[in-house]
Structure formats: structure tokens, C-alpha cells
């Protein structure tokens, strides 16, 4: 069985923040870090160092700018996914206790908590407790634990341990309030259960008590869409996850029903419809799989606090659409915005144009979903949408009930040969060229983005040598072949070229051809679109109802009706990619 040998955590400047050895004699962090840094930038999460003695496999993840290492050098180098999952769980647990995002100062300020977490999560390298929520039962977070110990040891407070005092001060400074140091302590009933047996439910801590009982369902879908140069969608997925926040006393037993919003109709009963939309689901262990299979509802006893209830995948292209969908890809997918890139413009072909468009019917579909959402929430019995969820982005659309588009960003990565982007002319928003990343980033405020769309035109400059080469290239007799290969260019490019040629006159067709061919290498080959839409889901899923089963639940008074909130969010983190 593969064992976790150690966990090392580095901060964003690669200073060692923490090292915890579980078992064996793993290579120290001071040895591993330089070897890790030797590898070029996008580093693999599994690296093998045969030169070390003993030869070591290093697993690493990066979360919130912190670098997590776990070396494995023993007799069994184990299963990579196990170790990586473990590292992610460590990061999650730290986040749960110290608050998100994870900051170096927070870890340094709470070594006592961190030490307990790391000691509990794995014992001598065997992972034994991955549930952050269950750790709540065994990790002491009460204030003054460390001081209590230090007092008994005879050390004056925290002055004698430089790391601790420094770290503590830092965390206070950043957070601005004492609450940060013990982020958990604000919530009631965080004292670990002193019960003899621990919780009966492995993922839920025992003796949960809340003064206000709240339940929130957040459905977040992340888009991943690839569009061919013609605008035809090649692949379109939405990766959804249901984040559930439960702040209910006792042991609640919940029933969450979702509906597909009309998709998959005629697929038999509701469970089948739902499953035809939500594909390849994964669940938190609390979900009763049998009921999902038979009825298509999520029945579960939640852990306390926020957790990922379910992950799923939605194929936005139907089984038949790939062949039929034409140019109106954006509207067929219901995306709120689209991008088109035209390259090879201008007299010497070194301009390109990015056009941001708004399909006509996207807003309608979205608001319909939102409207039905409202009605459903009303019927759900005490469900109310969280006021913040819709109003925050409402400034753009003006309609607080309609979904609102935010953070519209277009990124156009340019080849490394591009020396400079001389002109950036956005019709709306602001654009800038970042030489370090090698891309043009164009931000459009949601309120500027109307049905007319927006246009960005850029002129790029190639390397110095390329410009002077032009004459030579023509001399070599390129004319015959450049015409040939234009045949497989996208049609838009050709059309624009022809018109350009006409306006140019025919006096210098050869040099224009050569220039265009030259600058074609400098043209972007793709662009990505990022945005967020609140109150709308690409899949059309809806929360139908969220019921608390009073018979099965325990520790919650009959009359208590928890406050329920639902939030929908669709984001694209460079997820919409347009080839050109």
C-alpha cells in the first residue's frame, strides 16, 4: 500500500512554510525544491528524480499560490492519484479551518491547528480521515491551546518561538481583525465533541448547533466550448457542480429535486430525463445512490458547512446537432456572447479584428429560466432567493430578474514571434497587450455590451528580420505556390483578401501576397472568451424543491423551517475557444 511519506508546503516565494514527516526518511524539502524548479515552467504533477538516493517520485500541486509537495521514495511509490487526491484534501481541510483563500500567513499563524489536521488526516502515512468535516470533531481550535501548552512548558507566551509570534502577527495584520486567526471560532458549537464515540455519520461532525438554520444550493456550471473557424461548434460541455451549504442543527435529512427545464423530454420518467442531462455524475459519499438511480432525486444527510454535493457534465450539443448546426452556434447553444476573429486584414495583412457579438435569443432563454426559477422557489415552501445573488450583477442589464452578464474578457494569444502590437482600437471597453503572456486582453464592461456588439482591431508587428526579408522572399519566386495554399484558407479570409486586393489596385499584387503570407504566421490562431452569468445555467437545470424530512431528521425542532436559498451561476474561464 502506498504511503504518504511527508507533506511540505511552500509559500509563493518558494520558502518552506511547513514540513510534516509521516513515515520513513523522505528527502528533505531543501533537496527537492531545487530539483523541482529545474524542470521547465508548466511542471508535471508527478516528477521522478532517479539521481536522488533513494530515488524519489515527487508529487506536487499548487493551490492558492501555495506549493504542496509529497515525496515518495520508499519501497512502494504508490498510486499517483491517491497522493494527489490526498494533497487536495489537505488543502481543502486547511481551507476549511483557516478560511479561503489559503494564505501563507494564515498557516504560519495557526501551526497548532495545522499540526493537528496533518496528524489526524493520515497516520504514519496511511490516509485515514479525508473528511474535513469529520476533522472538526478531533481538531482543537479553541483559542489559547498553544498558549496553554507554552505556559505549562514555562515559556513566556508566544515570544520565544519566533516563527509562531511572527506568523501570528502577520495574520492579524492582513485580516485586520482577530476573527481571522480563528476563523472557525465565530460559528457556534465549534468545540470538538467530547463524546465517547465520535459521530455516527463519518462525514458529519456530531452535535451541530446553529442559531439560524440555513440551507443554500449553489449550482455552478463551467463552460467548455470549442468552435471551428466556421463558427460550427465542435464540442460543447458544461461541467456542473452543486455546492451545498448546510447550516442546520442536529442531523437533517434532505431531499433535493432537480428538473431539466424541458430538456430530455420523452425520455421516460423524471429520473431518466435528469440523467440524460446530467451525465457522468459523481457524488459526495452522503448521497444515497439507490434513490438517485430509482427516482432521480438527491437524498442525503449533509456534512456541516459548505461542500461539493455533486459533480456532473452536460453535453450542450445534442446527439444530432453536430451535423446540422450552422453558423448560429452561439444561439443554438444559448450562449450570451460570441466571438469572431478575422485575420489578415489591412494593406499588409498584419491586422486582425475581433468581433464580440450578442446573439439575439440568449437573453430570452435565460430570463425564462430565471422566471420559472422564481415561481419554483415560491412553490418550494419557504424557499427564497438570496437577495445578493441576483442584484450584484444586475447593474448591467437593468432587470434584476433577468440573468446578468459580467466580467466579459476576450483573450487573443499571439505567436511568440510577434514583437509588438502597435495599435489596439476597441470600440468599447479597454484592451491591452501583455508581452509577457504574449496575448491581447480585452475587457468589456457588461453595461457597454449591447446588442450591437463590439469590435477590437489590432495591428501587430513581427520580428525585425521578417520585415527586411520581404524583398528576398519575393525574389525566391514564391508566387506560384502561395496561391496554391490559399485554397485551404477559411473562406472569410479569402473574401476579405479579394476585396482588399481590388481596393489596392493590381500594381503590387505579388508583394501583398508575400506580405500576407509572411504575417499569416503572426496571426492569432485562436481566441478565448471568459464571462460569468448569474441566474442562468447553460444546461437549463433548475432546483425544483429542497425538502427537509422531519421524520428522519433528528435534533431539529418540528417547527423550525430553515431558510433556503438557491443560486445559479454559469462561468466561462477561457472556456469558449474560437479557432481561426
Amino acid at each position: 500500500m502506498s504511503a504518504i511519506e511527508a507533506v511540505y508546503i511552500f509559500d509563493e516565494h518558494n520558502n518552506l512554510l511547513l514540513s510534516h514527516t509521516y513515515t520513513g526518511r523522505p528527502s528533505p524539502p531543501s533537496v527537492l525544491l531545487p530539483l523541482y524548479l529545474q524542470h521547465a515552467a508548466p511542471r508535471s504533477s508527478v516528477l521522478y528524480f532517479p539521481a536522488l538516493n533513494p530515488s524519489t517520485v515527487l508529487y506536487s500541486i499548487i493551490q492558492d499560490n501555495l506549493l504542496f509537495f509529497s515525496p515518495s521514495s520508499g519501497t512502494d511509490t504508490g498510486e499517483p492519484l491517491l497522493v494527489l487526491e490526498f494533497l487536495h484534501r489537505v488543502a481543502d481541510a486547511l481551507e476549511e479551518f483557516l478560511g479561503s483563500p489559503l494564505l501563507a500567513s494564515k498557516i504560519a499563524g495557526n501551526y497548532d491547528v495545522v499540526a493537528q489536521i496533518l496528524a489526524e488526516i493520515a497516520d504514519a502515512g496511511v490516509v485515514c480521515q479525508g473528511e474535513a468535516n469529520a476533522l472538526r470533531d478531533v481538531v482543537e481550535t479553541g483559542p489559547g491551546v498553544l498558549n496553554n501548552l507554552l505556559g505549562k512548558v514555562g515559556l513566556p507566551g508566544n515570544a520565544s518561538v519566533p516563527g509562531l509570534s511572527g506568523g501570528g502577527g502577520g495574520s492579524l495584520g492582513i485580516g485586520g481583525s482577530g476573527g481571522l486567526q480563528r476563523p472557525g471560532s465565530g460559528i457556534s458549537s465549534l468545540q470538538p465533541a467530547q463524546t465517547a464515540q465520535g459521530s455516527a455519520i463519518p462525514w458529519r461532525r456530531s452535535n451541530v448547533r446553529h442559531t439560524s438554520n440555513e440551507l443554500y444550493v449553489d449550482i455552478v456550471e463551467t463552460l467548455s466550448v470549442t468552435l471551428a473557424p466556421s463558427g460550427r461548434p465542435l464540442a460543447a460541455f458544461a461541467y456542473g457542480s452543486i455546492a451545498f451549504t448546510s447550516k442546520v442543527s442536529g442531523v437533517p435529512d434532505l431531499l433535493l429535486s432537480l428538473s431539466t427545464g424541458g430538456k430530455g423530454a420523452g425520455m421516460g420518467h423524471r429520473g431518466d430525463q435528469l440523467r440524460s442531462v446530467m451525465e457522468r455524475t459523481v457524488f459526495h459519499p452522503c448521497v444515497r445512490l439507490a434513490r438517485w438511480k430509482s427516482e432521480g432525486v438527491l437524498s442525503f444527510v449533509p456534512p456541516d458547512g459548505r461542500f461539493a454535493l455533486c459533480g456532473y457534465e452536460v453535453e450542450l450539443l445534442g446527439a444530432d446537432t453536430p451535423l446540422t448546426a450552422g453558423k448560429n452556434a452561439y444561439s443554438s447553444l444559448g450562449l450570451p456572447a460570441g466571438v469572431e476573429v478575422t485575420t489578415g486584414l489591412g494593406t499588409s495583412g498584419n491586422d486582425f479584428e475581433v468581433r464580440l457579438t450578442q446573439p439575439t435569443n440568449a437573453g430570452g432563454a435565460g430570463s425564462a429560466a430565471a422566471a420559472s426559477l422564481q415561481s419554483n422557489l415560491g412553490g418550494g415552501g419557504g424557499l427564497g432567493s438570496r437577495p445578493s445573488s441576483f442584484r450584484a450583477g444586475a447593474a448591467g442589464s437593468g432587470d434584476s430578474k433577468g440573468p446578468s452578464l459580467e466580467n466579459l474578457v476576450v483573450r487573443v494569444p499571439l505567436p511568440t514571434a510577434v514583437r509588438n502590437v502597435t495599435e489596439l482600437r476597441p470600440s468599447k471597453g479597454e484592451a491591452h497587450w501583455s508581452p509577457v503572456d504574449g496575448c491581447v486582453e480585452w475587457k468589456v464592461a457588461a453595461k457597454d455590451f449591447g446588442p450591437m456588439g463590439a469590435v477590437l482591431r489590432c495591428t501587430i508587428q513581427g520580428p525585425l528580420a521578417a520585415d527586411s526579408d520581404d524583398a528576398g522572399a519575393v525574389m525566391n519566386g514564391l508566387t506560384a505556390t502561395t496561391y496554391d495554399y490559399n485554397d485551404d484558407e477559411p473562406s472569410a479570409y479569402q473574401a476579405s483578401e479579394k476585396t482588399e486586393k481590388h481596393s489596392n489596385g493590381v500594381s503590387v499584387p505579388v508583394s501583398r501576397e508575400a506580405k500576407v503570407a509572411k504575417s499569416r504566421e503572426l496571426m492569432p490562431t485562436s481566441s478565448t472568451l471568459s464571462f460569468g452569468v448569474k441566474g442562468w445555467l447553460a444546461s437549463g437545470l433548475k432546483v425544483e424543491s429542497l425538502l427537509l424530512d422531519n421524520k428522519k431528521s433528528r435534533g431539529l425542532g418540528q417547527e423550525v423551517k430553515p431558510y433556503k436559498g438557491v443560486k445559479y451561476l454559469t462561468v466561462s474561464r477561457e472556456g469558449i475557444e474560437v479557432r481561426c
Partner: protein
Amino acid sequence: MYRSEPSLTFFSAVVKNVASASLEVKKLVYIYLVHHAEAEPDLALLSINAIQKSLTDSNPQVRVMALRTMSGIRVPVISQIVSLAIKRGCGDMSPHVRKAAALAIPKCYRLDPNTLPQLTGYLSTLLGDSQYFVVGPAVAAFLDLCPDELDLIHKPYRSLVKKLADMDEWGQLATLRLLTFYARKCFPRRTQKVKPSAPVAFYDDEKNEQESQDTGEEYEVQVTDPDLELLLRACKPLLQSRNSAVIVSVVRCYLYLASPDYIAEAVGPLVALMRTPQDMQHIALFNIVAVAMRIPKPFAKYTAHFLVHANDPPHIWRLKLEVLTILFPHCGKHWKGVIISELEHFSKGTDPELVRESVRAIGRCAQGDTSTADMCLRILLGQISSLDGNLVSESLTVIRHLIQQDPTSHKSTVLQLVKNLGTTTHPDARATIIWLIGEFAGVEPENNIAPDVLRILIKGFADETEIVKQQIVLLGAKVYLHHLLQNPPKEKPEAPAPTETAEKPTKEYPNEWADNADEGQENADQSTKENEGELEQPEAKEEETEDRITLLWRYILLLARYDTSYDLRDRARLYKNLLETPSSVQLANLLLLAPKPVPHAPSPSETRKDLLIGSATLVVGPEAGYLGLPGYSNLPDWVVPGQEPNPSLRIDETKPDISSTTTTSTAGDRLDRALLNGYAESQSQQRLDRCRSRWKEDTGPVASGRRGRGGH
């Protein structure tokens, strides 16, 4: 301590607090103690007493901590005490303590391997435990301690399988690993797969007949051992686990143990791992490649998941391209088109690595599916006129491979390449084309373009790069050789000159030099004249060809002789001597016109095909050496029928009525049950607690623990 700053100086002061009543302080002290005990064994031993006292604390949590800490202290002297503590822990009635005992077993073994027999005894108790979260760590300990003593597993096998769905993810991982090995060793394969990648030829009848003797049914089609079936079915709910490692483990289980129906079900969840964070996505892709190489079919419908995104880092897109090429032959027409145009798109990109890989991928696609080879070739041919030298040379390499695989049908392709020779400037590309022409110089001797190409090339000889010059010389040699072979060598007037062969070139060297220099000079003049003549009347060549080719050859030699490159001069001299005498012409024939082996461009991960999926060795690949990383072991072969352990060993005496339907019970179901009698349980637990403390006084904790558990 965590900053690697010295904290050892406080050791005695901290350890004094080990007896502190406060639970919180105790925890921190324990952590400190475990960390530093090795450096201060004597002082650490002083704390043992206090810890031992905690072992009998009434609070199970304290007992858990004490047991864990004690076993964690790395001082070998205490191994017997630890062993005793584990023994007591195994009989504890709190499952949490039993879990801690299970976790302590490997630690104790590491302290002192001599305790193995005792520990194995404890393990067999724990493996049969009724609590699912005790069994998980027990299995982990078993794998650590004695993974080969499978006899221990027979009895708890069915209960392990039953508990699989309820365990936590880490327990599931350990159990799946154990049971996969166990199944290979204990369930003989009664269905003979000819090859995992060819599911059509699934049954080997002969074997079936032999093996079906023990079951007695002659027409039995597929015999999966019912116990194995139990395991496979129990795995199914795990496919919806959120833990990617569990999913890969199930896939491994299905891939190596089960029929293709099962693996087809597991493919979807495996593909779903593509939405995990990038680090895990990378590992998942390795596994996907490994599985897809064996069984590509079920992946075909997920092709869309493997499209390369512009912001994928190199290690991701490399694997994605590979998956695409593996799936290519199994896709529908639509997707084939999409894949090809995707690859074409990336081959026009700017990242040289990506360009190279995608061009190679096109080549692999063409290899994998001959019906699209033409389309691929057309795309590649379209690319050789690109301005991007990198793309051109890579495309040509792939084209060369494709042509070599099926030379007879590609004559026209070569012609087309020749047309491009005029415009291609990239040296590698030119060299490749010239080499190809040389390979085709022998076909259709009366209507071959090779001499003509050679004639044109020679004109610009001086301006070519060295690599191209070499190929030109080689082409010349081949053309000349063909010419010699077709015409009796007698006709050559040059033949009488030197009869020496390559045996004594050093002797003849100065002579030859002078000799040929003159000769060359003449020939140069002649050949230039001839060339001009040829240009004017290209059709009328039949009669004069012999002379012309000879002249061409001499001219090349002359040009090469005065080249600046040693290498080129040496090569030219070698060919010259080879072709000079009729006796060595046969030798030259062998050398120059030897049939070239057909190049095969395998998928980059071909070398990893046989590695166990889910293992680190699969990810590291060939770098890990022949035997893989330390600790790597592939699955054992199926046990030979007749040598498997008696299935009756697996019958669990205590619970004989195990039906396969109960295996699908989930944690949720269990929870329902727990909730129903939750109060009752906790009350009885408290009562037992009280009883236990009473018993402790007279019979000692071990006995009490046992009886307590029985009552529970």
C-alpha cells in the same frame, strides 16, 4: 518544528505535559513527541508510562490518541509494549480504537519486524471486523505487512466485498488493490480471452472444455466465478465516487479481471476525470491512454472530450493528441473529419512542438486507418509549401513514412513532391524529397524522372546546404547504379582505368587524385555542354542517356571532390570506388538499393502499454527503468485452473446467507439503519462503557473488551 527550526531543546519541558489532563494540550504534546522521540529515546521512554495509562482511559478518543502516539514513537525497545497495546486495541469495543490498532500495526512492524507473527494474528481479527471503517485500515496494514499471505483473506473475502461500498475512499483504494491481486491469484480464468484488444475472439473453446470439467456443464459460455462476480458488482457504485483514484482503481479492476461489458461501463467515469484539476487530469490522461490502447472502442463516443484547448500545457495536449490518434480509427465519419481538421489547425500554429506533434499525429491517423490515408496525405502535401520550415520538414518526414509503407501506390505523390522541390527552401525538406526520389529511381526505368531531377539539382549544387548535397550525391550514386545495372557494364569506357577496389584506397590515393582531377575537368566541360543540349531537346534522350548519366555522375563526383566538407568528400569517394569497377557493383547494389525497413511510427506511449494502470510507473514511463519504480509489481497471471484455493474457504461461517443483492447497499442505506437505532446504540454503548470499567478492575481490559464487543 514545522519551520525546521530547532525545537528539540524544549523536549523535556514539553514531554512533562504528557500527563496533562487537558485533551487539547495532550494532542499537541503527542505530535511533538512523535516528531522528536527518535532523537531523545531515553526521555521519550519516560513518557511511555503516562501514555500507557491513557490507553485505559474511559474516553475512546484518548485511547485512540494514546495508541497512535505510542506506536508512532520510533524507539525499537518498546516494540513488545506496542504489540501488546495493539492486541488490547484489537479487542476494544470502540471501533475507533480498533481502527487505531489497525493503523498501528504497520508502524509496529517497522519498529521491529520480529513481531510479524503476532501482528498477523491481530490482522486476521481486524480483517473480519464488522465495522467498515476498521476494515479499511486493516487492509492497508495487510498490504504493508504481508501482501502475499492471501490465506488470511479467504475468510473475510465476502465481507470485504460487501463493505466495499461503505468504506471511506482510502479504504476502498486499499481494498480494491488487494482484491484485484487476490482475484488474479484465486479465481482461475475460465473464459479465455485471446487478446484483450480483440474482444471479438473472446472464447477459446478448447480451454473452455478443459476447464468446464469441474463445473460439469459442457455448453457453458462464460464462467465468472460467483465470488468474482460479487466483487465486480460491488465495484459498480464506486464509479460515482468523487475520488479519482477510486475510479481508476475500479477501472483497473475491470480491465484486468472482467469482461469488456464491465469496462465499457467504467469508461464514462474515467473520461469524466477530464474535468478534474489539471494535475490530476494529467495522470488521468495517462491512464486513459493506457486503457484506450487496449480497448479503444468504448472511448470513441467521448472523442469531443479530448479536443486540445489553446491553453493546455504541453504535457496535457501531448497526451490528448495521442488519445485522438488512438481513437481515430474507431470514430465515425464526422469525427474523423473533425480530428483531421483539428490536427491541421494545430499544425499551422506557432508553437513548434505542437506543430511537430500534430503533424506526427496526422501520420499516425493515416497509419491507423488506411481509408483516410489519402486525405491525410493531401493535407500534408498542402503543407509542404508553407513558409514554416519546421512544419515543412516534419510533414515531409511523415510523408516519407507514409510513402515507404506503401511505395507502389505513391508514384504520383513523389512526382508532386518533385514539383515542390523548386520552391521548398528548408534543407531538411529538400533532403527528404531528394532521398525519396532516389528510392524511386529504380521503378519504370524507361520513364524515370530521377536523372532529370538530378540534372536540375546539380546546377545549384554549390548553393545547397551540406545535408542536401549529401543527398544529391547519394541520388547520383543511385541513378548511376541503376544505369549500370540496366546496361551491361562493358559499355563503360571508364571501366579499364583502375581495377582496384576499396581494399587499398590509401595506396592509390595520390594517383587517383591526379588522374581524376584531369578527367573530371574534361567531364565537367562535357557535361555542361551536354546539359545545355539536353535542355534544348529534352525528348530525344533514349540513345544518349547512358553517356549522359555517366557524365552526370562524373560531374557530381567532381563537384563533391572540391567541396569544403570532409564528410561529403569522403562519401563521394566511397561511392566512386564502389561504382567504378564491375566487381563491386553488386556490393553497391546491396549497399545502396537494399530494401529499407518500413518505418513504423508507434504511439508515443506504446512502451507503457503493459504497465499497470493507476501506478506511478505508468506516469513516469520508461525513465523508471526496466523493472519500474521501486515497489512496482504488475498483476500476477491468472492462477492455473486446479491450483486455486478451495472456494469453500471463502464461506463465512458466521454469515452464511450472503446474497449478491446486498452488495449494492450504500453508505446512505447504512446510515438509515444507523439513524433508526442510533439512540438505542448510543445508550447501549454507554451502558457497556460502564460495564467495561467495572470489569477492568478484575479481569483486565483485554478480556473485557472482547466480551464487551460480543455484547454489542
